């Protein structure tokens, strides 16, 4: 490769980097800086009682976010108009009132969840104890409102009792349950604050590496980066041919041909939608899209790994006759499945439109999730194709393992039914992070929090690197076992 070409390539890489960095800043918008969340409320099961003068309803809590913007509470007026006032305050553990809002009893509607906002967001420290306090300076029996308490939480199928860590205190007496309330909170990310510094730092690293590549080329020495690029140039055409072959032969003798790429995920979704929306009651918002996005990602994973598994053994005739770098085979198989993945995005888009999900700029972040998914699958393809050469049982074992994997990934059930002590296990599953990313982008139409990007990258790169190492270590032994 000539120095001029390397320079041109470096210039393009830097330009693309700058464009991506700016575009990302624009697309992710506020999500880069903070995340707004509503805390879970307990189911309101019984009213606490009239809030009269001198009574204090105190709900201790541990702050989870950086700011509290407001609180939602179910309030009741006993079906009458009350002329009382209610103070809603947040108090720290020293008894200092951080914020207070006054509600007028006349404005409170009966049995309606009322949002109480604070004038200024309340600054709290995560992990520290605070209390939400309700008092009334002039409430009297017959002229007072009430809040609600409870001790269960609604799940997909039933009300389940929860372990109550912070009991409601009425005039200092601990009650059985908790106040029905939900905070609107906001958490800030340090990443957003330092985004431009981070981009600048990475940009400098990239520029430095480009300069290094140029110098190496000028001196006529080879370097890892250049070798990778020239391998791409050299074997890119072969890769395209192999992908084209897989794609052409896949549907060659079927009547509907390529249509199956659309139909398959769509039909699976319809079947699962019917099953899971009637048999199991699920309260997932936008269930069709939730389901289809999971199915599309997992179908790709399962197809790519199954094809990748066979890639070395299936091409034995070629491998023993012609020298081609062996990684080409698993990688090209995963790429041919990736074409299918791209095609199945079309029904996904159709379902988005049909369910009236607004299409926001955040959808431009989808490629990030998909690239991570492809990277993860290539890593799995490396591992499985290596295993397959030495143990032919792998193909049957993988059928079972991939089924288990499917049930271990929240595809058709909501994340909320996963028991807390299994959550660690779920978080070790790369598919969990990638599918979660894709869903946030598609269903909520916003960028996920910065941590989700990091987790996706880890979920993709770690298996890819491990797979590549395992493959490279064993590839010379393949031919003896084919």
């Amino acid at each position, binding site marked *: 490769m000539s120095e001029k070409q390397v320079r041109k390539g470096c210039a393009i890489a830097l330009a693309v980097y700058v464009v991506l960095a700016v575009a990302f800043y624009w697309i992710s918008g506020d999500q880069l800086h903070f995340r707004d969340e509503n805390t879970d409320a307990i189911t309101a099961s019984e009213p606490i009682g009239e809030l009269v003068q001198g009574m204090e309803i105190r709900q201790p809590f541990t702050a989870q976010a950086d700011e509290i913007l407001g609180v939602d509470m179910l309030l009741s007026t006993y079906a009458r108009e009350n002329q009382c006032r209610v103070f809603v305050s947040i108090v720290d553990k020293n008894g200092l009132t951080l914020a207070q809002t006054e509600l007028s009893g006349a404005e409170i509607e009966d049995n309606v969840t009322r949002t109480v906002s604070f004038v200024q967001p309340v600054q709290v420290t995560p992990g520290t104890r605070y209390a939400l306090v309700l008092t009334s300076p002039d409430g009297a029996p017959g002229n007072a409102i009430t809040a609600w308490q409870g001790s269960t939480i609604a799940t997909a199928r039933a009300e389940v009792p929860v372990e109550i860590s912070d009991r409601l205190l009425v005039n200092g007496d601990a009650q059985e349950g908790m106040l029905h309330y939900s905070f609107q909170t906001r958490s800030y990310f340090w990443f957003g604050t330092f985004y431009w510094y981070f981009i600048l730092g990475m940009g400098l690293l990239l520029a430095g590496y480009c300069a290094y590549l140029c110098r190496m080329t000028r001196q006529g020495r080879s370097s890892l980066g250049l070798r990778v690029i020239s391998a791409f140039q050299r074997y890119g*055409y072969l890769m395209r041919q192999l992908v084209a072959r897989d794609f052409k*032969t896949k549907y060659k003798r079927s009547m509907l041909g390529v249509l199956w790429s659309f139909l398959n995920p769509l039909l699976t979704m319809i079947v699962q939608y019917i099953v899971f929306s009637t048999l199991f009651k699920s309260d997932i918002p936008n269930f069709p899209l939730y389901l289809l996005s999971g199915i599309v990602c997992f179908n790709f994973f399962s197809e790519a790994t199954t094809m990748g598994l066979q890639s070395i053994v299936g091409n034995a005739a070629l491998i023993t*006759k*012609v*020298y081609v770098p062996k990684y080409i085979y698993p990688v090209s198989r995963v790429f041919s499945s990736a074409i299918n993945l791209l095609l199945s995005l079309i029904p996904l888009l159709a379902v988005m439109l049909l369910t009236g999900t607004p299409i926001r700029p955040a959808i431009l972040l989808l490629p990030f999730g998909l690239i991570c998914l492809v990277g993860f699958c290539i890593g799995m393809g490396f591992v499985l194709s290596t295993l397959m050469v030495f*143990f032919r049982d792998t193909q049957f074992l993988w059928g079972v393992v991939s089924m288990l994997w499917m049930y271990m990934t929240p595809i058709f059930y909501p994340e909320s039914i996963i028991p807390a002590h299994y959550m660690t296990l779920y978080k070790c599953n790369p598919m969990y992070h990638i599918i979660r990313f894709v869903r946030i982008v598609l269903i909520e139409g916003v960028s996920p929090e910065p941590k989700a990007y990091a987790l996706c990258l880890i979920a993709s790169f770690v298996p890819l690197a491990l797979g590549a190492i395992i493959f490279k270590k064993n590839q010379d032994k393949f031919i003896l076992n084919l």
Partner: protein
Amino acid sequence: MIKAENVSVKYLMTYDRIQSMKEYLVQLVKGKIQYEEFWALRDVSFEVRKGEVLGIIGHNGAGKSTLLKVISGILKPTTGSVQVNGTIVPMLELGSGFDFDLTGRENVFLNGAILGYSEQFLKGKYKEIAEFSELGQFIDVPLRNYSSGMVMRLAFSIATVVQPDILIVDEILAVGDAAFQEKSKKRMLELMGGGTTVLFVSHSLSQIREMCSKAIWLDHGEMVMAGTTAQICDAYAH
């Protein structure tokens, strides 16, 4: 161009190849995993310079194909080293990269890519390949409808369209009918005349005598003799 130094290849052979985990464990428990060492090649050294045509002769199982695999990079030698400068086109078994569901045209590009040809090269040479193979309109028919002779003709045309630095030929001159055999032999001679280094394996001594400038004789993985074609062929024939 090619320099092989003390090349040895060792295969570990089990009597029954164990290909499943269960079998492996059962055999391991029984203590029955026995490997037999088998040296397919032992201490083979030779050198081929640019433009030379090296004939390799020997009985079945003498290690000829193993040697070719080592040179083309498919197999790593257990000990010793092979240095190869230049592009290699292996013609070990013609048409091993074909997909029988694709048409001849699609296979030209697929097989060409596997042999390491570039896109522009294949596009430029496509017509030449199609003409040489004499397939006519069959070029747009899926390969599963070809006769075996047609498949071989196409494979030969693809493999020899390029002028590689090193050409590895393993008994492939008997392709197609008599007329095509004549034509393919002419093409081979043309390639050899054009400065291509050729490694040539054949059981036919007459072919070796006709085409090669040097020869080596392998027997049971060991090199018996190396020298000029006439010397080796005379020794081998006796």
